[in-house]
């Protein structure tokens, strides 16, 4: 046996390793390297703006004018600002109403799509279109459909005998908010439906069969079999949707611009109007920040509820 041990490399076929490779063999160094680009980008464009927002909110900065420290003056101004209160109220109303409708209609559509029928894949693909197509572009189509003089919706309602004179969808304060809600629901239902459908498909049909054999009717089967199993995924969908709706901007910006007379002003459109439109950076940043606790509260409550449901 003339076998020299030193000549054998640790593993057959292993190339010689440089210092960099050896460094990356260490799990911690590899992790740090892999996470570096993400941390840099998110730090630079999320964490830093957040700090900057807090900084702006305690100064009187305008575009191109570095501000002076004014303490909590901006927050006091915002608190006493009637339009801000209207905007927050509208935002909450908008979020609650659209979420209820999106959930109800989305669930209904998901249950319909969960049946087997001809052209199911095709239908499912087409139904997602409102969610895929850029929101501002589809919202423009709605703006055209709501046009006071040329509205096709008015035409339909007139032909059906429901109305006798024109409806000024976006010009009337109450109707404007309803119109905005309709468009948001239209855009959101496909997302709910497709996500809930994915949830429905994980429920074993055997459970339904067992319940049917035990004599449960369709409604009872939904209430006691489907719904409890669907609840966890429903809550996560609602969480995402509520955040997105609460912070909605583009839909209202295109349809009404917050008008008439701030009837559809949401906090995001108001922050845009003040911060970018009139260039009062600090005021705008304050409006965004002032809403942050409300959003945080909503998210925390939902996360706690999700945890409670999931542990049961």
């Amino acid at each position: 046996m003339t076998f020299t041990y030193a000549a054998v490399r640790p593993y057959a076929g292993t190339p010689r390793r440089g210092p960099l490779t050896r460094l990356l063999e260490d799990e911690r160094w590899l992790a740090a390297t892999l996470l570096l680009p993400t941390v840099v980008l998110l730090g630079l464009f999320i964490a830093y703006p957040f700090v900057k927002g807090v900084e702006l909110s305690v100064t009187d900065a305008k575009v191109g004018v570095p501000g002076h420290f004014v303490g909590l003056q901006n927050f006091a101004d915002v608190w006493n600002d009637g339009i801000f209160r209207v905007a927050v109220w509208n935002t909450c109303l908008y979020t609650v109403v659209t979420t209820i409708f999106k959930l109800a209609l989305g669930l209904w559509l998901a249950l319909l799509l969960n049946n087997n029928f001809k052209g199911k894949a095709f239908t499912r693909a087409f139904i997602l279109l409102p969610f895929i197509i850029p929101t501002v572009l589809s919202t423009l189509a709605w703006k055209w459909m709501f046009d006071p003089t040329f509205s096709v919706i008015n035409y339909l309602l007139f032909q059906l005998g429901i109305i006798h004179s024109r409806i000024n969808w976006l010009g009337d304060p109450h109707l404007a908010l309803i119109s905005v809600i309709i468009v948001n629901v239209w855009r959101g239902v496909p997302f709910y439906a497709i996500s809930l459908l994915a949830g429905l498909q994980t429920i074993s049909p055997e459970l339904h069969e067992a319940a049917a054999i035990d004599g449960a009717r369709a409604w009872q089967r939904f209430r006691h079999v489907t719904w409890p199993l669907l609840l966890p995924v429903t809550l996560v969908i609602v969480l995402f949707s509520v955040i997105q709706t609460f912070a909605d901007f583009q839909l209202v910006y295109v349809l009404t611009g917050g008008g008439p007379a701030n009837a559809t002003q949401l906090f995001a459109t108001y922050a845009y109007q003040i911060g970018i439109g009139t260039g009062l950076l600090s005021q705008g940043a304050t409006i965004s920040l002032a809403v942050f606790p409300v959003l945080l509260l909503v998210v925390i409550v939902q996360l706690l509820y999700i945890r409670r449901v999931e542990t049961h």
Partner: protein
Amino acid sequence: MIEGAIWRRWVFFYFPLTAFIVALLFPFYWMLVTTVRPDSELYRPWNAPNYTPFWTLHPTLEHVRDLLTETLFGTWMLNTMIISLAATAISLFCGLLAGYALSRLKFPFAGSLGTMIFITYLVPQTLLFIPLADIIRNFRLGDSPWALILTYPTFLIPFCTWLMMGYFKSIPKELEECARIDGATRWRAMVYIIFPIAVPGILSAGIFAFTLSWNEFIYALVFLSSPDEKTVPVGVTSELVRGDVFYWGELMAGALLGSIPVAFVYSFFVEHYVASLTGSVKG
């Protein structure tokens, strides 16, 4: 399937489903009809006797031609394409690496870092756009595509990371261990064994990220100001409305053509898109 008599099937299934489909797709049909309708028919009040809303007897491509020749629409399409592709590429790169690290490696603060990325996933763009506009101005990135290429990843990376983490978790650890026993370094095992398996996940994340970038509005609205730097959503909404006059034919042509790239990508990868959509809401 709905059980029972045929009328029950109609009342509880076919009728509601048809109503949903019509309501969800009607605005797109309306875009199309408006695009090909001549102006003389377009501006006819809804209660006029010869108002024929749902079709036109004189289809024309005049609006499309005006859109392509008299506006910067082509430039906007190109801008949006470049920005969306670049932002998607950056986000996929970051998300892939970060997703691997967070789902496969043990290191201090892994849990809290994962939570932080999840929180940024929940931060809506409308919360930060004002300070971000200030930062973009200070970095001298304003009114250039870089403003968007660098900021879009902030909402795409968390999503890509989240999706890739879920995907990596479904790949058995043994595959990697085998490669390492055969002498591969951690790096090589990751790049040559795990990443190729993760291609469907990468594709899903990429498609979703691309459509999200194409649809983004508020950052593009705030960070860009010259007409020839704009993206499709911003260009169509701001430049095709002159003064108070809405050129509906061109607007709808713009909305229609501006939606085509996303619809095109979507139609080829419906399954991947749906997978990422449902993956994105699974905890």
